């Protein structure tokens, strides 16, 4: 994995943007689409994120995390903003049923990254009730209270499932042992 070249970012270069795009666009699009379920909106979000990252790359501190984490964090936050704004607007039912990405146009790619594959396996390996609350929180942008309401489950149960699910996810990913051993 490369890190975003912020050394000369006071004058952004198209090559920097292209490198950033080539390395991270599939995960960025996948994440935005997972949250928004609308390819048009997902592309708008990802375009803005890449342009913003490219414009402000010189402000990015690589010691705070990988470029991938930085980009995906922006994609997730912006997607959740769009999702919440959409929830405040009147619903448009056809968008859900008629406007999915064509599988020929937008094929899902097989995982090309071990970490990504491990993350998917780990999430799918969680017990369904734990996986559900984590997905509603992370991909759905719902609060504890909203999840409890949607699932008609006590809020304490929701919190417990999230904690158990995340603990299990960390173990399955091997995250604490590998990444936190020095801390």
């Amino acid at each position, binding site marked *: 994995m490369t890190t975003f070249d912020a050394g000369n970012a006071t004058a*952004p270069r*198209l090559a920097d*943007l*292209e490198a950033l*795009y080539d390395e991270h*666009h*599939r*995960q960025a*699009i*996948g*994440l935005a*689409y*997972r949250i928004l379920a609308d*390819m*048009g909106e997902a592309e708008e979000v990802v*375009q803005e994120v*890449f*342009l913003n990252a*490219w414009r402000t790359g010189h402000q990015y501190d690589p010691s*705070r*995390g990988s470029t*991938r*984490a930085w980009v*995906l*964090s922006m*994609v997730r936050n912006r997607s959740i903003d769009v999702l919440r704004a959409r929830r405040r607007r009147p619903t*448009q*039912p*056809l968008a*859900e*049923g*008629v*406007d999915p990405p064509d599988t020929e*146009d*937008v*094929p*899902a*790619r097989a*995982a090309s*990254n071990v*970490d*990504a594959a491990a*993350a*998917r396996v*780990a999430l799918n390996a969680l017990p369904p009730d734990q996986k559900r609350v*984590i997905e509603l*929180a*992370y*991909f759905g*942008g719902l*609060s*504890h209270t909203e999840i409890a309401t949607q699932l008609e489950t006590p809020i304490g149960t929701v919190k417990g499932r999230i*904690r158990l699910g*995340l*603990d299990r996810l*960390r173990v399955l990913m091997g*995250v*604490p042992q590998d*990444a936190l051993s020095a*801390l």
Partner: protein
Amino acid sequence: MPPTPVDDHTEEFEQLAGLQALDVLEGDDLRRFEQHAAHCERCRVMVQLDREALALAAPEMEPSPDFKARLMQRAAQELAATAQATPAESTIPPQQFSTLRPGEVAPPNVVPFRRRAPWASAIAAVLVLGIVTAGGYAYENQVVASYALQGSVGGSAVVNVRRNGSTELDMSGVQDPPAGYLYEAWLIPPNSQPIAAGTTSHGDAKLPIDRVGNGTTVAITQERGRVDAPTSAPIMAVVVQS
């Protein structure tokens, strides 16, 4: 790197780190965690790793074919606008841009780069913009779903839904309505009253209509002028099942 875990680090904070990664911490829990994480690098890293792991759990996907071109075009336009706002005088003599070595003469079919650049670049930019714009337009306007109306009259009428979400009723070969009449389109959601969706006085017409929900009936009636509720039975209709 600060010495971590810090003295007050407990397993509870690691659980809170997971909740913070999901942005679901609220109230006192949020305040306590933020105060702790401000001096606990281990917790900050856990939040970051949890977020990254969850982000990676989404399957990778390819965007539309022209997405990268549109992105690069936007960036190029921003760079061009910035360059225009702060023009810099070049101190390099023009001949230095020539690709010819001293003493070489340009063959008749070779235009030295310094002469070609202004107009050639402009044409290239227009061509690129044209291709990108046309490609994006074509993609966005692809019909992703069609629903043919059925009826007792000749000709055809189809509800076309495009990728960009726009929807239209496309009538073709339908006999024009009699003098003094027109055709009116209706959207009838399940268990709801008809909603007027547009009129036309021709049998060949395209009517833009609002997005059509699943189970909605799209119908055409013949009316004496535009009305707010149909006064006759539909001549053509279809139930949209998306």
